[in-house]
């Protein structure tokens, strides 16, 4: 039977199966960042003046800011002048109108990643999933637009929404995450290129799951996507994002902003399966993932949940947050983060309770192997009007081997005496005794590791929509693949 060291060694050998490069001609801006770069991006997208002004305002603010250093991650700072801020596969300046116009190479790319872009290809019995596929800086295809439109649902690239639904975009963009919110959000606001826009009208239950797949392909290019989802009164939507990138020796920057607006009695379930290239076993290459995600539960009884399965990226800096403004609103955060080799993750959530009887739940599961370092950083704030607000936090860490680390930084601010908080935290090693027990019952060591890790993550996987739970399971298996020799 293998020891923990052996398991660790094998984990280091895990394969990243989304690491291929698509050989496609692209239209890429030369590296560098200044006001002209921003004007250029804006012009490429034929944007209205107000948006260009908005971007420039963000950029000027960004210039006054400093890159944050408080996260427990260690990396060579990005040289913001050395990356390109726009890259689009030719000739897709604006998204094609039908799939027939999509470059077959792109279709093939998504096929290889297991993402269905051909609507008719869905298996019978599988619930439909609409997909927006973002390749480097642009959306290359969005499926089921028509069917969704019939239901009144808007699901399109944000660059298209700027033209088609300018009033909605203007009304909500930057209202959850303002331009100057933080260093990376300001950068994103200045140079964001594409991402998804979703609007669910009053009383509508979105007839299918929505998803966006982000793919970074071009070399030396940052991806700065911006997603905006609005759930109007009484509506409901379930959304998934997936992310992959080729294996490259250079680090690449991904700085996204996601804004969610939830009105009275509405609900958004947002799930992420993040599998950016994590770098090799020596820590060479990989994506720097600096993401600002925030949901505002503006309406009474509104609900939001963030569910994330994070297996990729060299560096993850990510704290999906819930601002619970409406009375009786509910925020949830479920997270599984796997770090192996030299990966570093500083992730967690913020629950800001402002309304009465607001409720939040945080369940965070961290798995570390190799030399990986992982931190949970969570803030729970109970505002002075948050009568009877409640929070429950549970963070568990599982360590494989003894060179990795897990750290927990819970922050609590309570300004209302009627609020209640509960916090539980555990750190455990994958038990030699658990492995032996499973093997004694006839499981191979690899199956035993998978079973124990999946058991550890169960509380979170149970929260994923059925369609995505399968994906998460597969990813976990790939991550832990070869964990025995």
């Amino acid at each position, binding site marked *: 039977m293998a020891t923990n060291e052996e398991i660790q060694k094998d984990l280091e050998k895990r394969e990243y199966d989304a690491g291929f490069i698509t050989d496609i001609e692209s239209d890429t801006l030369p590296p560098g960042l200044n006001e002209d770069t921003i004007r250029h991006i804006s012009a490429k997208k034929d944007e209205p003046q107000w948006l260009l002004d908005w971007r420039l305002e963000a950029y000027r603010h960004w210039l006054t800011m400093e890159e944050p250093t408080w996260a427990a991650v260690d990396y060579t700072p990005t040289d913001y002048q050395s990356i390109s801020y726009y890259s689009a596969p030719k000739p897709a300046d604006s998204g094609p109108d039908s799939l027939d116009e999509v470059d077959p190479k792109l279709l093939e790319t998504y096929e290889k990643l297991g993402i269905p872009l051909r609507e008719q290809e869905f298996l019978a019995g599988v619930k439909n999933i609409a997909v927006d596929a973002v390749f480097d800086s642009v959306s290359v295809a969005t499926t089921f637009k028509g069917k969704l439109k019939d239901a009144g649902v808007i699901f399109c690239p944000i660059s298209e929404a700027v033209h088609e639904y300018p009033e909605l975009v203007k009304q909500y963009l930057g209202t959850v995450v303002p331009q100057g919110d933080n260093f990376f959000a300001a950068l994103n606001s200045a140079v964001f290129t594409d991402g998804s826009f979703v609007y669910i009208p009053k009383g509508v239950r979105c007839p299918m799951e929505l998803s966006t797949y982000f793919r970074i392909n071009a070399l030396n290019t940052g991806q700065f996507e911006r997603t905006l989802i609005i759930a109007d009164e009484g509506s409901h939507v379930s959304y998934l994002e997936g992310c992959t990138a080729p294996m490259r020796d250079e680090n690449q920057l991904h700085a996204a902003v996601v804004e969610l607006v939830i009105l009275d009695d509405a609900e958004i379930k947002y799930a992420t399966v993040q599998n950016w290239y994590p770098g090799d076993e020596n820590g060479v290459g990989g994506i720097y993932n600096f993401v600002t995600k925030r949901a505002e539960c503006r309406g009474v009884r509104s609900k939001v949940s963030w569910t994330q399965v994070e297996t990729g990226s060299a560096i993850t800096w990510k704290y999906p947050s819930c601002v619970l403004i409406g009375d009786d609103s509910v925020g949830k955060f479920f997270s599984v983060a796997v770090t192996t080799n030299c990966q570093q993750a500083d992730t967690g959530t913020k629950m800001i309770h402002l309304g009465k009887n607001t409720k939040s739940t945080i369940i965070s599961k961290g798995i570390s192997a190799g030399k990986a370092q992982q931190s949970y950083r969570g803030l729970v704030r109970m505002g002075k009007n948050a009568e009877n607000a409640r929070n429950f936090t549970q963070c568990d860490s599982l360590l494989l081997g003894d060179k990795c680390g897990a750290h927990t930084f819970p922050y609590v601010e309570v300004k209302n005496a009627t609020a209640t908080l509960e916090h539980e935290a555990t750190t455990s090693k994958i038990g030699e005794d658990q492995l032996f027990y499973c*093997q*004694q*019952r*006839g*499981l191979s*060591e690899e199956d035993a590791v998978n*079973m124990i890790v999946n058991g550890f993550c169960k509380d979170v996987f149970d929260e994923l929509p059925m369609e995505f739970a399968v994906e998460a399971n597969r990813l976990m298996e790939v991550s832990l693949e070869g964990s025995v020799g």
Partner: protein
Amino acid sequence: MLEVKDLHVSVEGKKILKGLSLTINAGEVHAIMGPNGAGKSTLSNVIAGRDGYEITSGTITYKGDDLLEMSPEERAWAGVFLAFQYPVEIPGVNNTYLLKAGVNAKRKHQGLEELDAFDFMKTVKEKAKLVELDPSFLSRSVNEGFSGGEKKRNEIFQMAVLDPALALLDETDSGLDIDALRIVAGGVNKLRSKDKAIVMITHYQRLLDYIEPDFVHVLADGVIQKTGDKSLAVALEEHGYDWVKENK
């Protein structure tokens, strides 16, 4: 069936087993008794293939094969079962799911088709009844939150489902109430047959009233000090272990 010859085992540099030999034939029931820390669990763990023990010399053959060359799961597939002295909790892993994975891994190894959910559940329900295990335990996480006695009963339930050729029961009777002891013993007796062997590690002669052994061994100071029949256990109860050492 099982032949342990001159087995020397150290843990963390400390010699625990010092030339232990033991022969177990199909159809037999053996009891192993001995003071705390004598190495009884060490012996059963080494037979089952647990890591962390240094086997400095000696051999173990099982059905003619060199057991020490086999991985723990290969031993399990070959019919070796260990009921743990301290069954481990595995949060989030469904009790039945683990068992099904174990059964099917074995079947796959034997070139048999995997059992479908329906057939498997039928067996599981039958065996749960045999050891009077409440069906609610089937869908709970492995041993999580089980009482001490419930964990032991779960071990016997797993044994019943896996249907081993050689069962090692490490203090399965400890922590069982009188009724549970009778039920567990009844379960074990039903599994007795001419092509199976059972090794029971116990501190109490009481268990042997329920499951009558063919042999009773006393393990102390790293070797089998004395072997006898059921009456040895009775004498032990009366005189203690020092008596064994003095009357080899």
